[in-house]
């Protein structure tokens, strides 16, 4: 189980780093074993930063991330390498994840040399072929090729296969579908769902609500680095309670119904929110005096948390 407690990331920005940018502020949630959790947010909401913190690609400014009770930020040297045996990431752009002057299957060789030097080359090649079949590729067609000779979907599956070779327990999938074409993206999504059946936990980072709904059991809605709403996917999608989530759900283009013209998604020009207040303050149609303080997530029904004073007051 991967657990985030009050995870925070503050970037120093501006000339001489004089200002602070709160990319992620006090985010807590957990991903149980064999569970797919979607992390949903628009650009700049801090969703990728959370993924990178889990993968130890950026340092944390506060809070803790722990895997099965071990604090991730304390890992060094050998123990960090052990961590990467269990936790791996796949990112948005499959084309820039490869070095174009080497053949694409070099990534498997690197895993062999780094993590399994004792394994015989023959045995390893068989394992690579088996894993490629698991991700739905034909080894004969894809091995021994350069990245430009493979399609985006094939490269993305290569990266997933690379992660699987390590017998990982946790996969951070950061917008892995968005660069793929409509006719092939659903196959990669189905592949993730199959992996889940084999006990893999997945953090599925996306801005596309319908993809998140398709694959995940639980969802976390982020807005400007704070959790707005989280819980069981059905509850969030069918009865969203946070004003931001409601606005999001109303704006998703659907194929079964037209947009409701009455819901206004424009940002309202209100006085800027208090720096310690609710991050949604200046766009929220329901904002009132209490929203100048940061709301805390409240469990309004089992496994459905909402961080909004209006909702928690109505609930209390």
């Amino acid at each position, binding site marked *: 189980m991967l657990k985030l407690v009050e995870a925070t990331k503050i970037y120093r920005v501006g000339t001489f780093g004089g200002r602070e940018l709160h990319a992620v502020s006090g985010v807590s949630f957990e991903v149980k074993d064999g569970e797919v959790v979607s992390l949903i947010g628009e650009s700049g909401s801090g969703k990728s930063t959370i993924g990178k913190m889990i993968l130890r690609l950026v340092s944390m400014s506060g809070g803790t991330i722990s895997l099965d009770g071990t604090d991730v930020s304390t890992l060094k040297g050998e123990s960090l390498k052990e961590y990467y045996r269990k936790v791996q990431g796949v990112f948005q752009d499959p084309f820039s994840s490869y070095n174009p002057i080497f053949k694409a299957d070099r990534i498997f060789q690197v895993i062999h040399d780094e993590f399994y030097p004792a394994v015989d080359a023959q045995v390893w090649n068989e394992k690579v072929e088996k894993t490629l079949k698991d991700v739905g590729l034909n080894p004969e067609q894809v091995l021994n090729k350069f990245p430009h000779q493979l399609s985006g979907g094939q490269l993305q599956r290569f990266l997933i296969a690379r992660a699987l070779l390590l017998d990982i327990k946790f996969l951070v999938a950061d917008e892995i579908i968005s660069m793929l074409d409509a006719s*092939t993206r659903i196959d990669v999504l189905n592949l993730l769902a199959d992996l889940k059946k084999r006990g893999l936990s997945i953090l599925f980072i996306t801005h596309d609500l319908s993809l998140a709904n398709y694959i995940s059991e639980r969802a976390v809605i982020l807005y400007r680095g704070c959790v707005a709403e989280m819980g069981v996917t059905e509850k969030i999608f069918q009865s969203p309670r946070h004003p931001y989530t409601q606005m999001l759900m109303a704006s998703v283009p659907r194929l079964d119904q037209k947009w409701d013209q009455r819901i206004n998604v424009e940002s309202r020009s209100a006085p800027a929110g208090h720096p310690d207040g609710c991050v949604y303050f200046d766009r929220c149609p329901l904002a009132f005096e209490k929203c100048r303080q940061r709301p805390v997530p409240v469990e309004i029904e089992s496994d459905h948390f909402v961080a909004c004073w209006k909702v928690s007051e109505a609930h209390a």
Partner: protein
Amino acid sequence: MGLQVENLTIYYQTLRGDVRALENATFKIDGGEIMGLAGESGCGKTTLGHSLIFLAPPMKYVSGRVTLHDAEVPIWDMEKMNEFRFREISIIPQYAMNAMNPIRKIGKMTEELLRAKKVDFKAILPELKRRLDLVKLPHEVLDMYPIELSGGMKQRMVMVLSTLLNPSLLIADEITSALDVASQKAVAEMLVEFRDQECCNSALVITHDISILYQIADSILIMYAGQLAEKASTETIIHSPRHPYTKLLISSLPEIGVKYSEKQLTGIPGKPPLLLDPPTGCRFRDRCPVAFAKCAEVPPFVEIERDHFVACWKETGPDA
């Protein structure tokens, strides 16, 4: 009336030969119609849109004819097209976020743009302000630099600029793809509003996101590998498509409410052919579940019902 395109064929010149990006496109857009143009990346949809306004090398005009309100549009002539660009045919480019000059205030840039087209800025200023109100931008943006605007605001500003001279045809190239869902909805609805207010007569909306088209388009044209596959009203394309590619494409889209645990969607096996040396006949043949011997010939794009065009032998051939 409206836009009429006949047998338009556009190739890209490369060192290894011609890339046949668009072949024999024939369709029309009626006055007041918003037509969506959808397909996977590399299917030729952007080529089609750009060829109507700025046919620059390596794009090469091969054949075909374009008329707008029954007047010939000389798309092959870069010089002559200057009379049409902006006035008759206008575009909101894919890079709308970076389309404005970063070192000019937006008002100043607009003035220079209009001067190049010999339009008096002062005379058009009240209309410009009305348009800004329409897209809910404050008038102060004219005194701001593009960097001071957010992505969605820049997109709206470019929309206002592109339609300022009331073009007959507005081409919108992937205008929603870089925006988050809330801004997507706002921009898409404004496009419809512009048409309703007659800021543009008809529009060609190029996107890969069919669910956006379902919200705003009157009709949808589906392309595959440089050829037109199907064109019909939005309702027909979404709910009763006839071309196998359209059927598979629509059924592979995850919708809100569909879950893997309940209903498993499938993609289309295989990948589109390379257009440098495309296969003969129907280009979808290799991936098509119903392909048969006849598909070795190119299927014609014919009207099987009123305003419903399909290029598939199964639908139009002798055994259909």
